[in-house]
C-alpha cells in the first residue's frame, strides 16, 4: 500500500512539473495571467506531492517493509532506527528521491518569495526550475525507482523486481526477506556522512534558482539587475550549504577512511568542488554588476557555469562511470544525465550569445585602471575559472582526451593537483587581501600601500611569533617543473612562511577593515563597541558578513597549510602496558577489548593513554569495527587547537597483547573545521533578510533595494 502511495505521488509530481513548464511558457507568450498563475500553482503543488513520496519511503524504511527492494538493500532488522531514517539518502534511488524533494523545496521558496516582486521573470524561471525537476523526477520514476518491490514468480519460483504489481506473482515470504536484507553500508554510519550528502544536495540544487532567473532574464530580455536581486540570497544560501557539504565530507574522510587526511583529489570530490569554485566567482562578480553595471557577460557565463558544474558533478557521482570511492554503483542514469547537462549548458550559452550579439549585455562603464576594484574582480573571476579548468582537466579532461586521441588513458594523480592548485590559491588569497581595499575606477599604488600598512605590520608580527613556536620537523616540499625529474626543493618552513604571509594578510585586512568601521562609529556617535559592531554588521550585512566569510577562509587556509606541510607520521607496535615516545608525547598501550555490538558489528578497541611531561593528558581509543561486509578503522584522536594526535588501530594478533598503531600528528587541522563555522556564520549575516532585522539596523531606505550595500 505504502509503495502505491509513494508511486502515485511521484507520478503526479512528474505530471504537475511537465504541466507547469508548458502552461508557464504559454502564459508568458500569450501574456495570459490565468495561465501563468495555473503554471505557478502546479509548480507549488510538487512540494507536497514529493513530500508525500518521500514520507512514504521513510515510513517503509521505519516499518521495515523489506518487500521494497530499496528498504531491503539499505537496512536490515539490526539497523537502529536512526540509520533507518538516514538510509533515505543512503543509496542511489532514495537519494534521487531526496534530491527531487530538496529541489522542490528551493523552487517552492523561490516562487513564493519572488512571485510578486519579479512577476515578469517568473514564468520562464518556473519553466526552467520545473524542467530540471521534471528531469530528476523522471529519472527517479523510470530508471531508479525506490518503490520497486520484490516478487516471486508463481511458476518458476524466481525472485524479481517490479514497480507495478505483476500478474502471476506472489509476495515473497516476509521472514526470508528480513533475513536476507543487506543493511546500510558501514562507511555511511558516521555523523559526517549522515549530514554531508543532504548539505551537498541543498548546495547543488540551490544553484538552480539563480540559474533559472538568469535564463528567465535572457529569455524575456529583462537584463536589468532584477534577476540578480531575485536570486542573490538563494545563491548565498546554496553556497553555504555547498561549503558545509564539502567540509563535512572532509571530516568524514578524516574520521572514517583512515589515512589521516581529509582531501584526496579524488575525481568525485573534485566534481563537487567545481560548482563551489564557479559559484564563489559568481557571488563576487554579481556585486560589480549591481554596483557598476559591469561584467554582465561574465555573470551570465558564471551562473550558467555553476549550474552546469552542478549537473556535471551529479553525473560524475551518480553515473558510476568514474571510478572513485564515492560513486554509486554503475547505473543507467549516466547517459540521460549527460544529455541533460549538455542541453542545459547549451541553452544557456546560446541565449547569452544571442543577447550579447544584440549588444544587450554591454557594460555601462569602461574599465579605468588596472588597479581598480572592478579590474581586481575580473582577475578574481579569471583565477577562479583557471582553478576550475585546471581541476576539471586533471579529473576528467586528461583521462577522456588521452583515451579519445591516443587510445591510452592518462590519469593525473595527487602530484598534478598539488602542483597546479597552490599558485592559483595563493593568487586568490592575495586578491582577498587587496581587492577589498581598492577603490572603484582606479587606485594608486600609494593609496593601496597606505591601506595595507597596518595589516602588513600585523602579518609580520604574527609570522615572527609563529617562527618562534613552529615545529622544527618536516620534509622539504618538492616543486615539479615541466616533467617529474626536474623539480626543485624548498624547505617546508619557507613555503609555509610565504603561504602564511599572504593568508594572514587577507585575514588582517578583513579584521582591520571591520575594526576601522566600528571605531568610526564609536567616535562619531559615541556608541559602545558592542553596539557599534552590531550596527555595523546590520547596516552593511554584505560587506561585513563578507569579511567574516573571508576570515573563515583564512582560518581554513591556515589549517590546510599546517596540516599539509607539517604532518608527522610514524608507526609503533606495542605490547600491553608498553610506553613509547612520539616527539614530545608518551603513549602507553593500556587495554585491548573485543566484543559484539547490538547492531551486528564486532568491535576491536584499544585504549591508550597519552601523556606529556609525565602528566596524562588524554585517553585515546582507536578501533576497528568489523561488519559482515568489511572492517572499518575508526581513528582515535586527542584534538587541540594546535594539533591532533591521531591514532589508527592498524593490526593486532588474536590475543590482543601486541598491537600495531599508525600515528599521525596533524598540526592546525582543527582550524579547517572551525574556519567552516566562521564561514557559515558570515554567510548567514550576509544573506539574512533585511526585513526581519530590527528597524534601527536596516539602514536607509535606499539601501533596502539591495543595490547599494556594496561599498
Amino acid at each position: 500500500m505504502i509503495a502505491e502511495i509513494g508511486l502515485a505521488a511521484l507520478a503526479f509530481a512528474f505530471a504537475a512539473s511537465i504541466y507547469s513548464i508548458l502552461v508557464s511558457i504559454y502564459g508568458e507568450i500569450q501574456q495570459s495571467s490565468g495561465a501563468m498563475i495555473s503554471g505557478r500553482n502546479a509548480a507549488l503543488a510538487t512540494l507536497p506531492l514529493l513530500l508525500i513520496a518521500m514520507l512514504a519511503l521513510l515510513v517503509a524504511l521505519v516499518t521495515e517493509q523489506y518487500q521494497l527492494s530499496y528498504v531491503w538493500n539499505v537496512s536490515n532488522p539490526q539497523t537502529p532506527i536512526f540509520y533507518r531514517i538516514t538510509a533515505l539518502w543512503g543509496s542511489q534511488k532514495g537519494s534521487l528521491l531526496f534530491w527531487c524533494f530538496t529541489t522542490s523545496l528551493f523552487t517552492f521558496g523561490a516562487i513564493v518569495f519572488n512571485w510578486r516582486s519579479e512577476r515578469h521573470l517568473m514564468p520562464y524561471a518556473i519553466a526552467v526550475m520545473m524542467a530540471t525537476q521534471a528531469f530528476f523526477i523522471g529519472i527517479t520514476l523510470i530508471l531508479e525507482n525506490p518503490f520497486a518491490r520484490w516478487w516471486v514468480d508463481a511458476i518458476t519460483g524466481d525472485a524479481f523486481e517490479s514497480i507495478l504489481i505483476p500478474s502471476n506473482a506472489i509476495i515473497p515470504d516476509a521472514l526470508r526477506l528480513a533475513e536476507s536484507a543487506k543493511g546500510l553500508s558501514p562507511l555511511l554510519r558516521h555523523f559526517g556522512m549522515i549530514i554531508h550528502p543532504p548539505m551537498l544536495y541543498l548546495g547543488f540544487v540551490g544553484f538552480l534558482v539563480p540559474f533559472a532567473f538568469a535564463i528567465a532574464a535572457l529569455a524575456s530580455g529583462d537584463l536589468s539587475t532584477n534577476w540578480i536581486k531575485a536570486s542573490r540570497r538563494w545563491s548565498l544560501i546554496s553556497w553555504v550549504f555547498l561549503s558545509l557539504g564539502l567540509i563535512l565530507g572532509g571530516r568524514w574522510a578524516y574520521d572514517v577512511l583512515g589515512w589521516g587526511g581529509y582531501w584526496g583529489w579524488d575525481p568525485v570530490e573534485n566534481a563537487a568542488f567545481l560548482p563551489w569554485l564557479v559559484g564563489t566567482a559568481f557571488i563576487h562578480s554579481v556585486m560589480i554588476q549591481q554596483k557598476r553595471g559591469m561584467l554582465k557577460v561574465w555573470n551570465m557565463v558564471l551562473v550558467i557555469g555553476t549550474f552546469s558544474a552542478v549537473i556535471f558533478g551529479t553525473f560524475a557521482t551518480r553515473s558510476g562511470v568514474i571510478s572513485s570511492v564515492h560513486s554509486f554503483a554503475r547505473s543507467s542514469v549516466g547517459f540521460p544525465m549527460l544529455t541533460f547537462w549538455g542541453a542545459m549548458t547549451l541553452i544557456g550559452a546560446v541565449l547569452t550569445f544571442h543577447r550579447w550579439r544584440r549588444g544587450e549585455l554591454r557594460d555601462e562603464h569602461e574599465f579605468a585602471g588596472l588597479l581598480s576594484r572592478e579590474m581586481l574582480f575580473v582577475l578574481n573571476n579569471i583565477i577562479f575559472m583557471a582553478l576550475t579548468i585546471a581541476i576539471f582537466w586533471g579529473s576528467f579532461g586528461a583521462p577522456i582526451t588521452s583515451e579519445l586521441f591516443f587510445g591510452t588513458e592518462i590519469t593525473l594523480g595527487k602530484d598534478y593537483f598539488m602542483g597546479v592548485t597552490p599558485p592559483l590559491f595563493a593568487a586568490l588569497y592575495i586578491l582577498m587581501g587587496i581587492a577589498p581595499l581598492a577603490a572603484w575606477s582606479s587606485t594608486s599604488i600609494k593609496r593601496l600601500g597606505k591601506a595595507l600598512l597596518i595589516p602588513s605590520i600585523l602579518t609580520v608580527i604574527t609570522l615572527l611569533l609563529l617562527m618562534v613556536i613552529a615545529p622544527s620537523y618536516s620534509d622539504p616540499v618538492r616543486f615539479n617543473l615541466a616533467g617529474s625529474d626536474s623539480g626543485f626543493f624548498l624547505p617546508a618552513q619557507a613555503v609555509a612562511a610565504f603561504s602564511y604571509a599572504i593568508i594572514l594578510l587577507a585575514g588582517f585586512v578583513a579584521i582591520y577593515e571591520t575594526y576601522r568601521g566600528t571605531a568610526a562609529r564609536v567616535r562619531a556617535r559615541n556608541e559602545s563597541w558592542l553596539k557599534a559592531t552590531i550596527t555595523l554588521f546590520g547596516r552593511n550585512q554584505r560587506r561585513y558578513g563578507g569579511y567574516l566569510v573571508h576570515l573563515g577562509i583564512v582560518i581554513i587556509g591556515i589549517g590546510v597549510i599546517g596540516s599539509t606541510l607539517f604532518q608527522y607520521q610514524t608507526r609503533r607496535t606495542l605490547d600491553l602496558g608498553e610506553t613509547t615516545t612520539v616527539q614530545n608525547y608518551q603513549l602507553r598501550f593500556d587495554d585491548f577489548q573485543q566484543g559484539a555490538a547490538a547492531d551486528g558489528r564486532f568491535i576491536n578497541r584499544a585504549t591508550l593513554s597519552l601523556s606529556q611531561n609525565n602528566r596524562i593528558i588524554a585517553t585515546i581509543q582507536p578501533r576497528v569495527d568489523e561488519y559482515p561486509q568489511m572492517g572499518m578503522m575508526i581513528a582515535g584522536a586527542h584534538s587541540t587547537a594546535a594539533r591532533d594526535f591521531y591514532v589508527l588501530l592498524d593490526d593486532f594478533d588474536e590475543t590482543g597483547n601486541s598491537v600495531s598503531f599508525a600515528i599521525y600528528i596533524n598540526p592546525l587541522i582543527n582550524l579547517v573545521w572551525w574556519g567552516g563555522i566562521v564561514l557559515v556564520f558570515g554567510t548567514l549575516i550576509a544573506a539574512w533578510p533585511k526585513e526581519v532585522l530590527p528597524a534601527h539596523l536596516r539602514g536607509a531606505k535606499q539601501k533596502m533595494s539591495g543595490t547599494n550595500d556594496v561599498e
Partner: protein
Amino acid sequence: MTEMTWEKSPAQEKNKIEEKLKRRKSERLKFIIGGLLILGAVGYLIFSSTLGGASYFKMVDEVVNNSNLVGQSIRLTGAVLGDTIEYDATTGTLSFIVVHIPSDYENLAETLHEAVTDPSRTQLVVQMEDTTMPDLLQHEAQAILTGEIGEDGIFYGTELNLKCPSRFEEQAPEQLASQE
C-alpha cells in the same frame, strides 16, 4: 574673442578626443598584454603539472614483462588474490598479488570473480611501504594502484584504492527464490 574660441575649440576638441582614444588604446593594450600573460602563466602551470603528474592507465597484461614501462609512473587495475595478502605492521610493508582483468566489462563483480578463479590469468606482485592495512583489501576486491614497476618485476605502489562491488551492488536475493 568669440572668433578665437570658435576657431580654437574644434582643434582642442579633436586633440582631446585623440588623446582620449590614444589613452584608451594604450589601456586596452595593457589589458590585452596582462590577459595574455595570465593566460600564458596558467597554461604553463597546467601543462607542466600535467607532465609532472601524468601516469598511464594500464592493465596487468600490458605491464608484466614489459621492460619499456620500468620506472614510469603507472596507474593499474586488477583483482586481488586474498590468500596472497601479507602485511607487516611494524614496518608498514604490504604485499599482495593482483590478477589481470579486462578493461571493458559489463558487470564488475562477475569480472572480478572470473579473474580470481582463473589460474591462467597473468599475475603481478604488488608491494607498498609505510602504509596501513586498507579496510577494503580482501579477496576479489578491485585494486586501483598508482606507482611504478621495478626492474625486479614487482609493482611498487604509492597509492591504493579499492572497490568491492559484490558487497553493495543490488542482486536478486537467492534466498527468496526457492519458496516452496
